[in-house]
């Protein structure tokens, strides 16, 4: 493959419950073995977003040509969130924003997130989060949710984490009809036919490869794209070209920093 491979979804830091260590060497070893050129990395483990974002920068500073920092923001501390995003994005050079509403107990279309989205909208950046939550109100649809968000924040590019690892018609249709909405592939289940389904229903331009490293192995997660029954060009787009476009990276065709 002579096109770039970009992992759009990964995490820095330790998660002892699952035996995940903050081990940059292991990260790079797995990336090398998987053939991943660059990994977008965030840290969502800390209530103090600044601490997590600083930890991300340890990885980025260790291998700036391999890691792309992603800023975490939490509405638990609304007085800090936008200020921290300013620091993380404009001070540290992070490329997009990760939120984790599961920790907040309210879905990603809750108004508590709107100050974050307003800021992201001004920057014309991407936000990645789950598309559905255990505490969603009855009748919630992904398309309804992201249509409302896209209408309100038209310059945000929304990445629905994990959705391309499943066969979810609502998610795929949402990505198909909303130009600023994308799907991402990582999932602990390698659902039969998921990549094929999402390429068919959402389109090959709307799917991004992600691994969920270091919880999941990039080699195993990339395999669901590599071995999918889809055209070669679709694989190249999912594995990196779509992320390049989404993040407006214009670096060398393979390897090096933007």
């Amino acid at each position, binding site marked *: 493959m002579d096109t770039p491979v970009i992992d759009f979804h990964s995490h820095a830091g330790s998660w002892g419950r*699952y035996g*995940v260590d903050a081990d940059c060497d292991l990260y790079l070893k797995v990336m090398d073995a998987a053939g991943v050129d660059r990994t977008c990395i965030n840290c969502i483990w800390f209530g103090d977003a600044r601490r997590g974002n600083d930890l991300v920068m340890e990885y980025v500073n260790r291998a700036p040509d391999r890691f792309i920092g992603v800023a975490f923001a939490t509405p638990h501390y609304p007085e800090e969130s936008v200020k921290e995003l300013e620091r993380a994005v404009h001070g540290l050079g992070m490329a997009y924003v990760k939120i984790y509403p599961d920790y907040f107990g309210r879905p990603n279309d809750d108004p508590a997130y709107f100050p974050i989205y307003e800021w992201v909208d001004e920057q014309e950046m991407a936000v990645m989060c789950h598309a559905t939550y255990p505490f969603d109100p009855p009748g919630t649809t992904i398309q309804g949710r992201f249509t409302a968000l896209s209408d309100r924040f038209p310059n945000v590019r929304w990445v629905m984490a994990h959705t391309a690892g499943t066969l979810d018609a609502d998610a795929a249709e949402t990505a198909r009809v909303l130009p600023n909405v994308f799907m991402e592939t990582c999932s*602990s*289940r*390698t659902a039969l*036919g998921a990549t094929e389904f999402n390429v068919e229903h959402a389109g090959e331009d709307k799917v991004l490869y992600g691994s969920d490293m270091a*919880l999941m192995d990039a080699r*195993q997660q990339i395999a669901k794209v*590599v071995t999918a029954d889809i055209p070669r060009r679709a694989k190249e787009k999912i594995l990196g070209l779509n992320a390049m476009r989404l993040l407006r990276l214009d670096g060398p065709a393979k390897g090096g920093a933007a």
Partner: protein
Amino acid sequence: MMTPAVDLDFRPEVPAFDANAALGRRHDRRVAVDDAAGLLAEMDRAGVERALVYAPHAAAFDSAEGNAGLLEAIGDESRLMPQFVCNPTFDDLDETAAQIEAADVRAVRMVPTLHHYPFRSWVVGEWLEWLSARGIPLWLPASYETNWHDGADLDPHAVHETVRQFPDLTVVLCEVHYVQASWAPPLLRSLPNLSIEVSRYVIADGIARLIEDVDPGRVMFGSRFPEQAIAPQLYHLHRLGLNETDLRAVCGGNLARLLRM
């Protein structure tokens, strides 16, 4: 073994034998592939030579009916090896043993989490004794989910206390998810007659660490088809940097050995 970084034309470099596939319809949802022809087509696409298959109906409702249906579904297809599901709480050991021997079944699966029994010798002891004497390995799923049954975890302490009493029996822990990665490695270290099938073992570098930890002779490729695709975990195994001997063992040799093939 040297492999290119990303191989869009991947084919397995060693014979592959899937240690965890299901064959037949499910009661709780329509799966994408539910017959032998579909399974064989997907095996061909993934480059897998053979598969050990069980019937979901045998797990979810009735082992005898499901096992009989499995043999019917397999027919004369030599690439598919039947695995019987046994429920030691209600099945008759003598009858099941006769069916196993008549069909030359080389592996058995028990699902204590679905069948609601403790995996203790006072429930399963007689069965494990028989399996041990016949050299038939036992598969134990770490959990088993249906859409009407909560996929409770296997009790690792019960497995430990029971399996250690049958040192000549090979037990294969299967469908181990990352949420069970806290207890699976120490259980494997503690029980030399325990192996692991890795269809759901996706934790970063987890399989490589397992292989280092417990030796490659006890780690087996499985797909969990048709819930999951066959090829991805096989691709993953080819990226672990294993030497050819170990790759052959993990991708199929260990299973062939256990099944006396």
